[in-house]
């Protein structure tokens, strides 16, 4: 299947493979899946329309190497739509990690998805990030994580203290 042929399936393996490719190409240091899809690793499935890949940039300048990331993926057939890169009709955001999100990338859980090695934010970091953002949907995510995910309360407490975050 061509890289931008729309797929009824969610092309997550392609997304993760591409993120590994960015490391191999020397464009980023590390990465992990964050956002709603990371939450779904721990809770019931729900509708989400994009994937968030948080990356630790190699280039610590203002652009965080994003132009090079776009150029690399566009050369592989990815398309650009607004703030997203799109693969098989599925939008992906590549977000430079700093502070709490950088820690979340470094401490992310290693998984394998359809044979592709990947990293996904730990449940405690997902909750801490949602608490730091604090929109209505973040509060709903916290509630869902508290109900369904197997959280390490000590780890969560340490993250919240380290980054001076209060739970809503």
């Amino acid at each position: 299947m061509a890289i931008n042929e729309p797929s009824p399936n969610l092309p997550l393996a392609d997304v993760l493979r591409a993120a590994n490719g960015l490391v191999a190409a020397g464009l980023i240091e590390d990465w992990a899946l964050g956002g709603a899809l990371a939450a779904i690793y721990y809770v019931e499935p729900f509708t989400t329309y994009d994937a968030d890949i948080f990356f630790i940039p190699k280039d610590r300048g203002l652009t965080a190497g994003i132009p090079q990331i776009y150029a690399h993926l566009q050369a592989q057939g990815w398309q650009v739509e607004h703030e997203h890169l799109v693969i098989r009709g599925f939008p992906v955001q590549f977000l430079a990690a700093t502070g709490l999100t950088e820690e979340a990338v470094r401490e992310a859980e290693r998984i394998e998805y359809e044979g592709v090695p990947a990293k996904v934010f730990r449940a405690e970091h997902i909750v801490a990030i949602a608490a730091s953002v604090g929109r209505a949907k973040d509060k709903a995510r916290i509630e869902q994580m508290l109900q369904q995910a197997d959280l390490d309360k000590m780890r969560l407490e340490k993250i919240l203290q380290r980054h001076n975050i209060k739970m809503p």
Partner: protein
Amino acid sequence: MKLEMRRKLASEPFVEKIRKVAHLIQLAKTFPRRASRPPASRTAR
């Protein structure tokens, strides 16, 4: 949905959950939510 059922869904393999997310996206595209209509205005007679 009952919490017990939601926890059961949460414990499914990630690959299976992602397959369900794709299905939910397809359903949302097939049956988009309609904006709720404002209530009909009442006119005094």
